[in-house]
């Protein structure tokens, strides 16, 4: 009995010690990027918008670590400040995706029947568009602006999340504790939020962490096409777009944001994979203490 009583803390410690390497490396990268983006004004003395005609198109050197662009602006400072926007867009869009996707998935999976059929067909319609097309479509009907592109990126990935949460919910619906909750007269909202959601969380968190990379990439792509961030503020996608005429002359202007974006995506993917390894119920041993 006493051993069992001590089990939770013991388990907790063991879990901490057994954090997968992927999660540590990925988490480190993501954390570093976020800190650099937030502390951008402190990390670099240069302003991202300071025009310096004398130093224009200079290659990377001791003063300008990633060189300068066609207006002589510091590429390093611009990448860091652009990171703020890109990362924020990625996270915000993912948040929107899950804000819509999770409740819809829960309801579709739990209620089933005609409502489920209707919802899922609507999701199928959304899914049948290529993401970039759908994003463009949403933005094309109105004037482009930052918050709209965030919303567009968020909506694009809703169907994926709905499907995922729905299938998990359908697994859980047949558990006896759900029946028990119904038998004592719990309402729909309680059962979804307090009985099903906690058991779907690990999967949702893992999925969310991987969705962030998709969102960052799509947001960058939309900015590249001029539908996202608007000059003079800049994110990685817009930076690459603006650097396009100078790729032969000064490749560092395009390479720097691209390179950082790669690191961000790889880091977040590592983080998500590690999280999956740690939380996935299929990898965890079933049963009691």
């Amino acid at each position, binding site marked *: 009995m006493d051993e*069992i009583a001590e089990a939770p803390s013991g388990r907790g410690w063991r879990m901490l010690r057994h954090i997968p390497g992927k999660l540590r490396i990925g988490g480190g990268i993501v954390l570093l990027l976020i800190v650099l983006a937030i502390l951008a004004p402190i990390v670099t003395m240069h302003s991202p918008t300071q025009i310096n005609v004398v130093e224009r198109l200079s290659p990377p050197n001791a003063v300008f670590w990633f060189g300068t662009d066609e207006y002589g602006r510091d590429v390093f400072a611009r990448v860091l400040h652009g990171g703020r926007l890109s990362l924020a867009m990625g996270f915000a869009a993912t948040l929107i995706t899950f804000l819509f996707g999770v409740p819809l998935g829960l309801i579709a999976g739990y209620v089933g029947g005609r409502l489920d059929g209707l919802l899922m067909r609507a999701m199928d319609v959304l899914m049948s568009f290529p993401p970039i097309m759908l994003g463009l479509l949403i933005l094309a009907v109105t004037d482009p602006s930052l918050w709209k592109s965030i919303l567009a990126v968020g909506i694009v990935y809703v169907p994926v999340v709905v499907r995922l949460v729905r299938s998990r919910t359908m697994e859980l619906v047949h558990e006896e504790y759900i*029946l*028990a909750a119904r038998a004592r007269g*719990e309402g729909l909202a309680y059962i979804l939020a307090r009985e099903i959601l906690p058991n779907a969380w690990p999967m949702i968190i893992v999925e969310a962490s991987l969705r962030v990379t998709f969102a960052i990439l799509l947001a960058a792509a939309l900015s590249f096409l001029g539908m996202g961030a608007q000059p003079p503020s800049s994110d990685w996608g817009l930076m690459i777009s603006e650097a396009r005429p100078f790729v032969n002359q000064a490749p560092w202007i395009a390479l720097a944001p691209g390179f950082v974006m790669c690191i961000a995506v790889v880091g977040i993917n590592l983080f998500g994979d590690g999280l999956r390894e740690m939380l996935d119920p299929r990898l965890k041993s079933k049963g009691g203490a």
Partner: protein
Amino acid sequence: MSGRPSNARLLEVRGLNVSYEGREGPVRAIEDLDFHVDAGETLAIVGESGSGKSTVAMAVSGLLGSEAQVAGTAELLGRDVISAPEAERRRRRGVEVGIVFQDPFTSLNPGLTVARQVTEGLIHHRKVSPGKARRRALDVLGEVGLQEPEQLLELYPHQLSGGMQQRVLIASALMCDPKFLVLDEPTTALDVTIEARILDLLDDIRRRRGLGMLFITHNLGVVNRIADRVCVLYSGRIAEIGRKTEVLTLPRHPYTKGLLASLPVLAANRERHSLAPIPGQMPQPGDRSAGCVFRPRCPFSEARCEEPQALVRVEESQSVRCWKADLVVDLPWPVERRQRVSRKRLDDETDTKPLLVAQDLRKTFRGAAIRKTIWRRRFGIPLPYQPRRVVRAINGVSLDIMEGEVLGLVGESGSGKSTLGQAIVRLIEVDSGKVLFQGQDVTTLSQERDFRSKAQVVFQNPDSSLNPRRAIGPAIARAVMLHSTVRRADMRSQVEALLDRVGLPRSFYDRYPHQLSGGERQRVGIARALATRPRFILCDEPTSALDVSVQATVLNVLADLREEERLSYLFISHDLSVVAHISDRVAVMYAGNIVEIGTTEQVLAPPFHPYTEALLSAIPRTDPGTAERSRIALRSDAPVGGEATGCPFSGRCPRRIGHVCDEVVPPVQTGLAGHRVVCHIPLEELAATQAAEDPPPNGATRQRDASGRR
């Protein structure tokens, strides 16, 4: 049993040790096992979950993976299996030893025909041509009692009933003419009537072929039915080994005594008393002491039990791992034999009115029958699978439950008993019919909230009845809060009081379900049901997933609560002895119909409905006198559901009297004091023939004219 062709030793296991690499060093699953099996003999290894019995089966059949560290020898036909290289083990598996696993539903590959699965061993091991293998398969399928094997070969597993699947598995194990069979709980997933038929078949095959069998089971009744010798395994060590008759009549190890004492006894005129559970639970393989592993749970333990115990021969063929065996052999398992109050006594105290009345409930599940016809019409070819038929899960059931009464509901899987239970507490909607609770129709929504608090459910599966992400305390507290006005400050004490009531320590408040054993989780489920102060509890197979020693604890808790609170239960189980133990009245359900209902005494004595009679005769008992008892042979493995026009049981009924059974719905015959039997045969005739045939002879199958299946 008699008639052994020779005493040739088929299997000799010496000093078998199996351990796995754990986080804190090696974990020993099996320790120092010695046993042997002769030709024509069945050795049963009996133990509760976690005793290591399946590991023994795996070791003997050479199936243990490389992660297991195995020491010792297991000589099969004189050659060691343990030290043999994997290639040799694979060659011998299927040729020298046939293996049948527990779950027929997952042991057969759903994507391959029966023909493929039965013949592939022969083709692979013996290099026999497919045509020849097929002819052999027809013979063996016939031998295991399957009709029309020619057609059967082309079917897929899901088209067979569970009993047929298990016969196919046994057939494929026999294809290469092995001398030895390893059977790992081969009947556990089956209904008792089918289990009885499979056990008969296995016994028959053993006798005919002179096989040696290693039979793994948790069920002492099955042991009694099939084994010559028994090996009682506890926590990876042999507690007791010996001839079945000796071990079951005169158990010497306290654990064997406890196991036998915790079983509910099935008898018509029995004293009502509490069961004798074994306290505590089996130690995990990691934390075993050097001394007797059973010591913490043993009522006879002393200081000397902490010393290592040796397996000592006490009789010609019986050995026991307990130094005290000779001292305790005549002592009964100590138990506080609590006399149960019968409902009659309760009746006298207050006048009884029905608490819950179900009137003509009906529920039908429909399958994909329409799609089939469209497919046929359009493409002109039949579907490769059978479409699901219309299933009448509940077919006009009426019953009532008195205040303070326990109504048992017994039936095999698919009989609709769980559907009926869920319909009564309104977890599923019925097609028609009414449920009156305390005189009010609860099918209308306005009463729902009140009804929800007064009618609660205890579920079957301890792994899924509690939300794994919620601690025990809050889970119970939620149920308390929902239906009462307990202040937040008093909540904890309220929940702790509920934990007291089901005999759990208060410290469980902050635990999570995975930290509890199955029996403990089941008791938490009971506490949660009690939290709303119900008058009625639906117990849906509450002990089916538990080991017998734990089952006794849970049954005792339920019986005590019912007396203290005057609760009413609808107690659903497939196990008639459990139902009979706890119930005042018993209803027997078959294919959506209640075929017999009456007091427990009435249902357990003639006149029976022929189905009740078959159920009773199929239950494997533990008293050795009943082992040789002949059983009623049902005419088919498959319960025939669907749209029967007459009696739903007529397809399997051994007492079928003619076409009237197939075509006319049988009348409800009322006997003494509310005893009702739904059958064409008059009660007097049933009573007379059944009493005369008690125990009924094996040839109870009359009227073999109609085919078993429709």
